[in-house]
C-alpha cells in the first residue's frame, strides 16, 4: 500500500471503482430485503377491498405488467388472485362530475366473481341503482365474453360502469386468450311498458295547470311539473273538442343541461301532436325524468280540458289529503329527530328538530305547551327542499296552521308540497312524542 502513488490516475480510478462496487452491492442487498416489504405495504391498502371478492385469497399486484393491454385508460389496478382469477379496479365519470371508482373480478373460467363500488356519489335512487342488488346480480350472472347491460333511467352511470367493465373484459380476455365480440350490443335496457297518458301515475310530478285561454275549440294551459331536480314549465295547446294535444312549447327548463334537454327538443315535443289520453308516448332515452315531466304536463292539460282534476289515479298526494291523526301517521321515512333546547318552563318547551323532506333535511324550531300537549309555534330554520315547490309548506300561513295541534289532530298536507309538509309534520310529531316521554 505504501508504494501506491495516491495521486496516480490508476489509484483514483481503482478507489472510485471499488467504492462504487461496494456501494452498489450494499444497495442491492438492502433493496432485496426491503422491496418485498414495500410491495406488501402498497398491496395491503387495496387488499381489504380485494378480499371482499376473494376472501382469504393471496394477491399479487400485476398492474405494471398488464396495464399496457388497456387502451381505454379506465383501469387503475390489476390484481391476480393466485389460482382463482383477476380483480380490476376501475374509474369512470357517471352523473356526478367527481367520478366513481369500482372493482370487478373475473374467475379464471371467465365468470364474473365480484362487482363492487369503491367510491361513488351518484344520485341516490337513480345512478346509485347501478350498485344495488338488482343490477349487481345482473352483472354477476355475466361471463367475460357477454355484453354488459345498461340500466334504464340511470343511463349515464351505467354507461360509465359498462365502459369500465368492458375495459376490464378486454384485458382479461386478451390475457386468457378468450375470443369475444367487443361490439356486441347489450340487451336493450329493461323498460317498463309505457302506459297511455291518461293512465300513467304522475302523482310524484306535482303538476299544476293554469288556463291561459280557451275559446271552446282550442285551449292553452300554462303547466308546471317537477322533473329531475327542478321545475319545468310549458304551454300546452289542447284541442278541446277531440281531447288531443295540438302542441307543447317548453317555456322554462329546470333540469340538467345536456342531459334532460334531449327531451325538450322540437323533434321530441312534436311526438305529442295529436296525442290523447289513450295514446302511449314513449319516454326519451337518457332523459327519463324530464320526459316524464313533459308527459305529466300533457296529461294534466288534457284532464283539465276535459273538466277533470289535473292529476288522476295514483296516491293522492297532489290534492289536499285529509291527514290522519299525527300519532297514527307513519313518519318512518322522514327519519325525524329532536334535541331539547329548553325545558325549564313547562308551558314553553323548545325543541330543535330535523327531518328528511323530498331531497334534503329540513330543520325547525318547535315550541310547544307541555301541559296541554299542543304546539305553540313552528319556525323553519333550514329548508333544503326544492324552492318553488316545497317552500309552499313553509310559508307563514302554512306554519300558522300548526298552532294548537296535538298528537290527535289531523293536519292537512300542503297541496303540491307533500314531502316538505310531511317532514314538518314528522318533526312536530317527534317533538310532541318527546315531550310526552314516548
Amino acid at each position, binding site marked *: 500500500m505504501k508504494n501506491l502513488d495516491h495521486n496516480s490516475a490508476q489509484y483514483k480510478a481503482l478507489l472510485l471503482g471499488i467504492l462504487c462496487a461496494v*456501494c*452498489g452491492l450494499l*444497495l*442491492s442487498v438492502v*433493496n432485496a430485503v426491503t*422491496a418485498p416489504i414495500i410491495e406488501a405495504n402498497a398491496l395491503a391498502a387495496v387488499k381489504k377491498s380485494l378480499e371482499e371478492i376473494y376472501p382469504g385469497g393471496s394477491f399479487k399486484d400485476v398492474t405494471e405488467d398488464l396495464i399496457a393491454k388497456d387502451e381505454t385508460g379506465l383501469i387503475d389496478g390489476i390484481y391476480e388472485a393466485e389460482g382463482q382469477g383477476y380483480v380490476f379496479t376501475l374509474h369512470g365519470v357517471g352523473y356526478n362530475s367527481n367520478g366513481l371508482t369500482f372493482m370487478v373480478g373475473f374467475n379464471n373460467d371467465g365468470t364474473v366473481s365480484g362487482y363492487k363500488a369503491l367510491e361513488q356519489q351518484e344520485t341516490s335512487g337513480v345512478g346509485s341503482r347501478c350498485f344495488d342488488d338488482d343490477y349487481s346480480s345482473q352483472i354477476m350472472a355475466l361471463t367475460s365474453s357477454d355484453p354488459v347491460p345498461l340500466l334504464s333511467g340511470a343511463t349515464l352511470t351505467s354507461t360509465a360502469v359498462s365502459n369500465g367493465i368492458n375495459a376490464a373484459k378486454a384485458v382479461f380476455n386478451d390475457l386468457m386468450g378468450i375470443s369475444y365480440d367487443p361490439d356486441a350490443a347489450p340487451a336493450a335496457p329493461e323498460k317498463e311498458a309505457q302506459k297511455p297518458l291518461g293512465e300513467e301515475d304522475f302523482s310524484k310530478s306535482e303538476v299544476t295547470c293554469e288556463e291561459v285561454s280557451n275559446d271552446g275549440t282550442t285551449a292553452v294551459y300554462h303547466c308546471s311539473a317537477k322533473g329531475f331536480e327542478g321545475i319545468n314549465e310549458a304551454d300546452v295547446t289542447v284541442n278541446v273538442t277531440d281531447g288531443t294535444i295540438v302542441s307543447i312549447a317548453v317555456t322554462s327548463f329546470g333540469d340538467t343541461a345536456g342531459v334532460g334537454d334531449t327531451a325538450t327538443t322540437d323533434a321530441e315535443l312534436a311526438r305529442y301532436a295529436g296525442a290523447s289520453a289513450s295514446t302511449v308516448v314513449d319516454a326519451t332515452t337518457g332523459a327519463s325524468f324530464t320526459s316524464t315531466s313533459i308527459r305529466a304536463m300533457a296529461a294534466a292539460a288534457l284532464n283539465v280540458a276535459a273538466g277533470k282534476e289535473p292529476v288522476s289515479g295514483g296516491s293522492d298526494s297532489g290534492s289536499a289529503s285529509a291527514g290522519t291523526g299525527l300519532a297514527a301517521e307513519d313518519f318512518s321515512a322522514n327519519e325525524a329527530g329532536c334535541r331539547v333546547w329548553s325545558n325549564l318552563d313547562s308551558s314553553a318547551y323548545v325543541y330543535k328538530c330535523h327531518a328528511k323532506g323530498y331531497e334534503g333535511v329540513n330543520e325547525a324550531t318547535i315550541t310547544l305547551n307541555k301541559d296541554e300537549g299542543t304546539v305553540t309555534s313552528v319556525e323553519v330554520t333550514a329548508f333544503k327542499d326544492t324552492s318553488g315547490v316545497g317552500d309552499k309548506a313553509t310559508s307563514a300561513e302554512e306554519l300558522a296552521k300548526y298552532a294548537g295541534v296535538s298528537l290527535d289532530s289531523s293536519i292537512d298536507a300542503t297541496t303540491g308540497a307533500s314531502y316538505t309538509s310531511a317532514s314538518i309534520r314528522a318533526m312536530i310529531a317527534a317533538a310532541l312524542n318527546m315531550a310526552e316521554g314516548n
Partner: protein
Amino acid sequence: MNLFTLFISGMLINNIILSKFIGMCPFMGVSTKMESAVGMGLAVIFVVFCASVLSWGLYYGVLVPLELEYMKLITFILLIAAFVQFVELFIKKNSPSLYKQLGIYLPLITTNCAVLYVALDNITQKYSLIETIVNSIGVPAGFMLMLCIFSTIRERLRGNDVPKAFEGNPIAFIIAAIMAIAFSSLSGLV
C-alpha cells in the same frame, strides 16, 4: 398535462422557494445583490435544465432496462456533480469573463437542493421527455424570479431600521413569509 400550465405551475404556482421550500440554502446567501442574483439565476436555469434532461435520459435509458431503479439517487447526484465540474472547466477555459461572472456560483449549485429535486421530481411524476424539458425550465425560472425580487427588496432594506436580532437572514425570512401569502393566492389557478 398541458405544457403551458405545466410551465406556469412550475414557475409561479408551485414556486420552488415559496411553495416547496427547496433551494433555500444558496438562496439566502446569494439574494443580497441584484447582479449576483441574475448571475446565479441564469446559472441555475442552465444547470437544472441540462442535468434534468441528462438524468431523465440516464434513468429511462440505463437504470430502468437494467432494473436498477434504486441506484437513482447515487447516479443522479454523481451526474450532477460531474456535469457541474465539466461546465466549470469548460467555461474557465473558453470564456474567462463569463467565468468571472458565473463561475463562482457553479460549485454552490452542486449541493443546491433544487437541481436534485427537479431531476427526481421528473421521474416521480412520470413526465415524458417534452414535459421534463418544460418543467426543468419552468422551475428554475421561478427560482430566478424569486432571487431577483428578493435581491431588490433586500437592497432596499439595507438602509432601513431593522431590529438588531432580525438583521441578515431572519428579516429575509419575514419577507419570504409575506411573499408566500401573495403567491399562495395563485394556488387555485390550475
